[in-house]
């Protein structure tokens, strides 16, 4: 079965996000009433495995082993079947 995962990696709450703050300042310069900006990274991963349970387990592993550093990042994902 072919699956597509959408993984979003964000900085944990409370962690300083200098990229977000710089972007916020720039948006304020442009006169937008911005309160806060947090930057996150999105991965779209297509892969094959036997079941949706296995697919979710693999994505969880990918996040923990490579895509997120558990010290500073949170992650969330959705996995669904896609056209072969």
């Amino acid at each position, binding site marked *: 079965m072919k699956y597509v995962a959408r993984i979003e990696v964000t900085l944990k709450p409370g962690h300083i996000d200098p990229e977000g703050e*710089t972007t916020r300042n720039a948006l304020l310069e442009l006169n937008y009433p911005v309160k806060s900006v947090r930057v996150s990274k999105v991965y779209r991963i297509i892969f094959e495995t036997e079941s949706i349970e296995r697919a979710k387990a693999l994505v969880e592993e990918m996040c923990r082993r490579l895509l997120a550093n558990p010290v500073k990042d949170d992650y969330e994902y959705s996995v669904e079947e896609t056209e072969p």
Partner: protein
Amino acid sequence: MKRGEIRVCIIRVGGTNCDAETKRSFEDLGVKASIYHVNEIFRKRELLAEHQILVFPGGFSYGDYVRAGAILAKTIMARIGAEIKAFIDEGKPILGICNGFQVLVEAGLLPGLNGISQYPEAALATNVPSGYRCMWVYLRHENSGKCAFTWLIPRGAVLRMPVAHAEGRFVLPKEKDLFNRLIGNDQIVFRYCCENGEPAEGRFPANPNGSFYDIAGICNPDGTIFGLMPHPERAYYYWQLPDWTRMKNPPRYGDGKLIFESIIKYVMKKF
């Protein structure tokens, strides 16, 4: 072991840009240093065991995609994790400079509180203030002498080296008591400080990246794996110092030499 028998393995990948200076610094001290592309090590896995010192030099690796150092770290541990573990178990020193420090943290080799960790136990996060900083900083040596890379340097000594990075802010997980263990194990090696040695206390520019507790470099509990953000290989010769032309009697070497000399003397003593 005699100085001339010591072999240094310097690993490079696409993006590494401090390998040549690192090799030159080692060779100036009379040891043989070789630069290998990481794929050479993957093809010939026994190569690593022929060396006594392993270095991950500065620069970038694999475009620093995902996170700085993450891809090289995971690839190394997946492909030659057993060889790396054997290297560490023999007490052979591993040095990570700048991107190399990021690699060691992402690989779970540093802080290494419980040996090699499958997941990173710390992070080198984006600088605060944000941006790439290339500047000279002062470092206070905090280690009591077990760190194989700094044991020739007295505790409390102030060294000067340049930093050049955008992700060097050392952070530990908030919920765990890792910091006390780092202190207890004497794992904090260098802290950013003012010229007179007073703590930077997180203030820019003495602390160039907002690093927690002004941490610039740490070692593992055994003192055989060491990572630091500043570049000792860019502070090796006197002519690399920013102000040598203004000095009446410039020294022959910069402070970076102390790191290389310490590692070599450690290997000469131990093997």
